[in-house]
């Protein structure tokens, strides 16, 4: 894979992050958006910040180990996990299910330990893989609940459906590359690790595209009201 192609994709995904943030800003002062969407723009804000810094770091210092960026990325993972889990629980009745509640708090403790371990060892896979795996399970719980309750809502017009589908696709798609990243970084030349890096980046890009769809839905529905 050529470096230029890799950079182009990285920049494109970064632009999606920025667009997602711009769209999210339009929901800030809207009172009529669904209650679960209030404050969701914070996620897009942090994602855009991390996305831009990552892209800048990849393009302008491609040979550095990015240890500072990696640490920031690890810390942002806590935000990613907590924010999206709480979002799913707010949309579903997740917190009323003891197993999910325990998995969240227990998962958070394990994640904190995993992040510390990853930061010290300059690794990546365990914490990201673990957080995404839990999020993936929560998404499946959302779909399960969707099918077990009275189908009163129109799915395609529901912002929560697009957001959770975004999380589901992102965590499902990036899980395998994330889990093997540490191994691949050691065993493959840098040029070839770009494939796996791109899969992860693209999966996050898809997630943010679906977030944009959710923001647009919220805005159009607010205007109708």
């Amino acid at each position, binding site marked *: 894979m050529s470096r230029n192609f890799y950079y182009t994709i990285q920049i494109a995904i970064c632009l999606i992050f920025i667009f997602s943030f711009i769209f999210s800003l339009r929901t800030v002062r809207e009172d009529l958006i669904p209650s679960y969407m209030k404050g969701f723009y914070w996620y897009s804000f942090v994602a855009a910040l991390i996305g831009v810094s990552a892209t800048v770091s990849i393009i302008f210092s491609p040979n550095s180990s990015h240890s500072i960026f990696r640490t920031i990325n690890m810390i942002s993972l806590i935000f990613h996990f907590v924010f999206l889990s709480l979002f799913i629980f707010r949309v579903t009745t997740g917190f009323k299910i003891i197993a999910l509640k325990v998995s969240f708090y227990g998962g958070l403790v394990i994640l904190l330990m995993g992040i510390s371990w990853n930061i010290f060892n300059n690794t990546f896979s365990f914490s990201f893989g673990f957080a995404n795996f839990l999020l993936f399970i929560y998404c499946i719980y959302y779909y399960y609940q*969707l*099918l077990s309750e009275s189908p009163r809502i129109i799915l395609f017009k529901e912002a929560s459906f697009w957001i959770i589908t975004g999380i*589901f*696709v992102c965590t499902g*798609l990036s899980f*395998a590359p994330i889990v093997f990243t540490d*191994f691949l970084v050691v*065993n493959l030349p840098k040029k*070839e690790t770009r494939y796996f890096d791109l899969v992860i980046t693209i999966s996050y890009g898809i997630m943010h595209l679906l977030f944009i769809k959710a923001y647009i839905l919220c805005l159009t529905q607010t205007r109708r009201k």
Partner: protein
Amino acid sequence: MFNSNPQEIKAFIVTCYLIILVLIVFVVTIVYLYTQKQHTYFKEIEKIKAFHENTILQSQLEIQEQTFQNISREIHDNIGQKLSLAKLSLNAVGINRSDKDNEIMSDSVRILTDAISDLSDLSRSMSAEQILHNGLVSALEYEVAQLRKSGIFKATLITRGNMLYFDRQKELVLFRIVQEAINNIVKHAAASEIFLELDYAGEVLNMSIKDNGKGFFEDIRKHAGIGLLNMKKRAQIIGGELVISTSPGTGTTLMIKLPSQYETNSPNQHHISR
């Protein structure tokens, strides 16, 4: 696992595509199942709603019928009797009166006679007895006769085909629909002719009520009448269908189609044509 081998990298990319495919299939399946469930759910809601509407309307009809019976009985047994008594008393007044008094007296007796006759007609029209004992055709004949008697309308009743005997309650609902339609014609249509037709075509009764009145716009029909809507719902309750066709200047036709899947022809069925 990977040894910089392009084949293995390609395999990895293919695996990624497969994962995407599986995820998409999963989401599409969820959406499909949800939509199917939603479809059934909305159908069920519609059914329950229709059932409730029918129950309410049936209750309304029962209450209305009961009220009609009470008023009819009251007119016949109480007011009618009192008026007849008053007429008798007037007739029994002594004969030594002036001509003017005699004229007033005979006018009063005539007015009382008219009032007794009108009340008797009203009582008969409101009562379900006529339908329950003599059947729909007989009741409609009476209504048509009443219209003719008024001298305002030229009313005609035509019956075709082998007469079907419906359940009496159904006939009562049909009769009330016709009464309401006639009432509407009298009040709003400015018509001079009313034409009632009962066509027993095989297992279906096609009933039509036509007038040569002023008619009305389709839009008005859509937005107006609770009366029209009620007639439609009543027809639905007895398993029938009511269609109204009208336009300004061409009169109005009300068609009621009532299948008789649960009814049987009377053993002494006969062809009636007038």
